[in-house]
């Protein structure tokens, strides 16, 4: 389970997130929607501490993943990022073979047993619905794959270190419709084993894949509820206006 309590976040002087509190249950898909610059990606990147890489940021409040405040003193960030995997907007496989891309997370965590790595690579590729397409060319460069396949490879790469949470930052926005629908099917499958949080610009996508949806605007969490309710009968007028396309 993931929880945020009274999160305020600043980029230098810019107040990017304003008092966000929410809870995401295990084995559910939560979608964040909202116009560009609303803070949804910033909020997502809090949970694997990716914002740490940006100089001049400041955070108050608590971020709790599996019962632990991940910003507490003494938290090992590398360990956290194993536990909370991430898939980025643009597929970013490494310039290595398909096999080595998936094995990377294991290797940097000190796993050397070849049998074990081979097995985990197969599991992960199968988990990302890519195994059948690549099983005969594992030694080929990851760049020979199509954009959609590359994105599924990045998902497999994240799965290989056995995270409990998977963060997805607009994972399908650089892909064609067929690849997009494959990623969406995959999200349905992955929900059984992982807690998934997805940021998307595409409201139909949020409606299709998620159990709960949060609507962000100008750093506020305007509304957070079951996806069905959000799209059929939102509480706030702002939400209604955004969903029906009156702005954004």
């Amino acid at each position: 389970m993931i929880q945020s309590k009274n999160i305020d976040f600043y980029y230098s002087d810019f107040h990017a997130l304003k008092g966000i509190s929410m809870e995401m249950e295990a084995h559910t898909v939560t979608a964040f929607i909202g116009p560009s610059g609303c803070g949804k990606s910033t909020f997502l990147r809090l949970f694997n501490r990716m914002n740490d890489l940006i100089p001049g940021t400041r955070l108050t409040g608590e971020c709790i993943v599996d019962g632990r405040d991940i910003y507490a003193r003494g938290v090992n960030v590398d360990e956290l990022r194993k536990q909370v995997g991430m898939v980025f907007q643009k597929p970013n496989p490494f310039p290595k073979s398909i096999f080595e891309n998936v094995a990377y997370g294991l290797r940097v965590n000190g796993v050397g047993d070849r049998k074990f790595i081979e097995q985990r690579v197969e599991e992960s590729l199968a988990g990302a619905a890519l195994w059948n397409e690549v099983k005969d060319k594992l030694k080929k460069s990851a760049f020979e794959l199509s954009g959609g396949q590359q994105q599924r490879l990045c998902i497999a790469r994240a799965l290989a270190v056995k995270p409990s949470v998977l963060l997805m930052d607009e994972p399908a926005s650089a892909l064609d419709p067929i690849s997009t629908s494959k990623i969406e099917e995959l999200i349905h499958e992955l929900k059984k084993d992982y807690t998934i949080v997805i940021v998307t610009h595409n409201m139909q996508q949020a409606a299709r894949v998620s159990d709960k949806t949060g609507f962000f605007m100008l750093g506020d969490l305007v509304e957070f509820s079951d996806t069905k309710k959000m799209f059929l009968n939102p509480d706030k007028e702002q939400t209604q206006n955004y969903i029906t396309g009156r702005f954004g």
Partner: protein
Amino acid sequence: MSKHTGQNIAFWIFRLLGLIVVGILLWILGFIIWNGIGVIDWEFLTEAPTDGMTGGGIFPAIVGTCCLILGSMIVAFPIGVMSAIYTTEYAGNGRVVRFIRIMTDNLGGIPSIIFGLFGMSLFVNTLGWGDSILAGSFTLGLLVLPLVIRTTEEALKAIPDSFRTGSLALGATKLQTIRRVVLPMAFPNIVTGLILSIGRVSGETAPILFTVAAYFLPKLPTGIFDQVMALPYHLYVIATSGTDLESARPIAYGTALVLIVIVLIMNILASILRRYFGKKVKTN
């Protein structure tokens, strides 16, 4: 005059200037080859100078220059690559880094004779290494350090951040990310820095003048504390202060030709390396 004619004239001027540059290079090369090819034979490449340097070969100088190239690269590369990793990957863009950058650029602007004097005072005298391959390599290494740092920095900056964040997001440490993802990708461009440095090192005379180069030393070095002859200095000697300048003239051209060919071979080797590794890390 129409816009179109103007563009045509500009285009022809640019093209002409481009051709002039190529022309000058070919002229120099042709001149050296024309005058130098005559003395090049097996004996010239494998024997020591004789007859007050008006006869024999230049083998000791070839060996000496190769030793100095190797030695200076061993000195400059680890230091240069590691400081570039520090400034681009670790240090951010604070005051300290900007100071280091400015100092690096200043170091690159210091005339090479100053490096020669500095090397003599520090390595030869203070540290007591004497005129030696070691002293010469360190002096030449310092000389090319700014070049190595700059080219490595550019190579590292050219790697998109998405590869770094991708690696960090999998729980890799910064050091693992640099070693396993960033450096392999930057390697082809770092090799380009190596090529440039070798070209620079093999042609320098001033830094080796007081630190390693021997006027005449027919025997080969046996260790890093030996003196050696070197091609650029040998060329300088037989062109200006030999016993019989006129009869040594063809040997001077021959020496110049050998120097150019050595640099050329290094460049070809480096570009083969570059292509080999470039293929392995090609991005989309």
